């Protein structure tokens, strides 16, 4: 009897290693966010105080877990799960936005899921990653941030804010996430995943 290790499980069904890799990815990013929130972001946000929409150029950093998870695990739900767990970690450790991070995470995760679903979880190139990052950022801004954080901005500024977010999502989360996955694959860390072969 010969059993191929992959025909025994439905392709979209999650294995234990999928769940744990996604969850540990959230934890690793949780640590990086914790460092970023406490050491880097205060400096960045001070630097951007003269032109606030530019601060939205950092949005992509928070979208990275979703894009990276989708590129590695390649299964429906990976982006949403990873982003949501990362947000819970941020909430528990303490952050600037409290409960709102959970809503953000759902929107951001869904944004990434939509793009990979459009390509039926069959394409995982840099272009798709950039698109996923941009859609994720767009959803977050249009559905949530326009109505909470920047509600009183003039529309022109709201659009500038959106543009900065889209660029950040595409470049930092999309292309950056793609680059992270590439170098993880090169280091041999993704042996258990299609992305590593």
């Amino acid at each position, binding site marked *: 009897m010969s059993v191929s290790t992959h025909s025994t499980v439905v392709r979209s069904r999650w294995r234990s290693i999928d769940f744990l*890799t996604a969850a540990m990815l959230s934890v690793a990013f949780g640590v*990086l966010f914790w460092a970023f929130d406490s050491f880097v972001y205060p400096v960045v946000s001070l630097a951007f105080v003269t032109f606030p929409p530019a601060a939205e150029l950092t949005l992509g950093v928070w979208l990275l877990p979703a894009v990276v998870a989708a590129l590695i695990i390649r299964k429906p739900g990976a982006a949403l799960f990873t982003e949501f767990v990362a947000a819970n970690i941020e909430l528990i450790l303490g952050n600037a936005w409290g409960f709102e991070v959970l809503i953000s995470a759902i929107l951001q995760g869904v944004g990434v899921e939509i793009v990979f679903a459009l390509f039926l979880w069959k394409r995982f190139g840099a272009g798709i990653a950039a698109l996923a990052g941009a859609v994720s950022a767009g959803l977050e801004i249009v559905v949530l941030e326009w109505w909470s954080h920047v509600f009183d901005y003039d529309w022109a500024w709201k659009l500038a804010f959106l543009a900065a977010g889209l660029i950040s999502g595409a470049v930092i989360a999309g292309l950056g996430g793609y680059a992270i996955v590439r170098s993880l694959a090169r280091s041999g860390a993704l042996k258990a995943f299609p992305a590593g072969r």
Partner: protein
Amino acid sequence: MLLTGPSGSGKSTLLKALAGVLSSTEVGEQNGSIVVDGVDARTEAAVGLLLQEPSDAMVAESVTRDVAFGLENRSLSPSLMPEMIAKALRETGISHVDGGRTNELSGGEMQRVALAGVVAMDHGLLLLDEPTSMLDSQAAAQVREGIVNTARSAGATVVLVEHDVTDWLEHVDRILVLSPDGKLVADGATHSVLVDHAELLDDLGTWLPRKSAPVPAEVSLESVHSRLVEESNQPSVELRGVTIERVASPLNVTTSTSSSSGRVVFRDVNLSFYPGQITAVVGASGVGKSTLVSAILGLVPISSGQIIFETGLGLPSMSPRRLRPKEISRLGQKLGWVPQNAQRILESKYAQKLSGGESRRAAVERALEHQPAVLVMDEPTIGQDRNSWKDVVGRLVAARNAGTTVIVATHDPALIQLADRVIDVGLLAETNESSFAERPSSAHSSGRSRIGPLAVLAASALLLVGSFAVTTLMAAAVGVALEAVALAVASIWIRFTWRRLIPGVIAVLSIAISTWLLNSTHSPVIAATAGLRVAFFVLPGVVLASTINPSKLGDHLAGRLRLPDNAVVAAVAAFQQFERMVISWRELRFIAAFRTGQLQSGKRSSSLSRSAAVAIAMVSEAFQIASRMSVAMESRGYRPHLDRAQPRTWMFGAPWLTSDTILLVVTAAIAAVPLLIRLSSG
């Protein structure tokens, strides 16, 4: 039954296959089938598995939750669990940590708790993968005793993988030997295998009981420090009045309700290390061997005193502060270092393919490449078979003969015997390994939070909805003032971490400022209203969130919100690794700077690309932990890829408290205030 063979012969893989966790955690072809008690091993967890690294097996915050993990996966009734857990802890001889936090256990205690988690499931077959290799002899003996007792009382078959068979022999009935290419080369009763295949076992590097210690291999190194050897009465490293505190865990810093300061490990220690000498730093695990050698490297900052290097080396002396990356890289030029997790200091591409023992051996080779004046090593002989031991220790002796100052933290008796000097850290340390009861509890918010996590989330959601009705400065100010009063009153019963407000306040200010700039009216009133509207829903949420305990959040998300069990279980288990990841992030950053000192000039990388490399290394470590955890968890019945007959049970359930209802009612009233003000003002 004992299974032995050289590194890389497939012992661990065979164990995983027996446990039925191979196909879902690794890639490859599996031929044939494995039948345990008449059942295909892949479909049901009928087998207990204990792995090398104890912290990979810890899946829960508390000892109780951890031992309950397998029982919950088996859908047992929560009412049966306390008794089964107590029994398992008793059988493994670890009852005294019942009720403690897994993060506060020593390695030996963790390994026994992991064993208890396996034992509680009452399997007929117990698989152990070098369960004592990471432990010092005392802790190893305790774990061994726990295993032997359990096997006896439960009547279970035990399959053990081990390099060093010496201490197990009296308990083992049968020995199997694998060759380097994974073939079974010997199988028989313990005594007959030892006698008939003595030569074979020796060739394969198995550690056997014998009178003579192994002889280190002859390695010659160019003598680089002849000048230092001549004046060897001059120490090359000197600790003067050094005090070291164990750094408070980052998780406690951020989530603890009380400010926990570091615990003093060493006070006012004076020590000298000399060139051309091997100094062994010894002592029970947890007493501070690693802390001491890490301080010499500058990885652990000292809190008072000084560490001075011989002046000819041109190294910065260490005082109570963190080193700058440039200083770390200068240390990297003159010092050799083999960390306990040796993979970290090797090129990641290369290290992934090596086992623990192999990467320690490679790191020793690498550390000697640039002819260091001082060589610092943390347990370099763990996981070495007899042959690789000779090679590793041979290099160490050669370095000593070449005039290097060799400092090695170790619990390996054969290595200690070779040392020129032995420093027992137990005699220096401020507190000996305290018993669990005396250990200062980190006062985690765990047991003491009086409100459930879902009530906190629901309250935050109510405030977010309520904030949309904030249109006037008056409504915003009244709302925020009411919240402040309510929180102040609540803080009589509930301990909040007020410090958490700082980032939120900064965010609120930045919103007010940017609105003032980017709203065409440039009205300060609109700006203040915008800031306070955000403050209205953000600030109370941030304060309330400081009461959330991750394990309880998991209980509630699965039990009350019906989020998928498999996802919640993985998330909660992974969260337990947060502290470990913060520590590894710090060490990886240090290593990145340390290694630049060893690279040829011109090959220096920018600090940005170095940070990126550190982030990649950390994520890749997280993935390695994930894969080992998934093996440990699958062997305890976590099988998301299989259909379940019954849903998983949760020992602690998701109780809704009276205080949760009170919180929601009060919050709903406050959340409605802006709307009422808006309606009443027409």
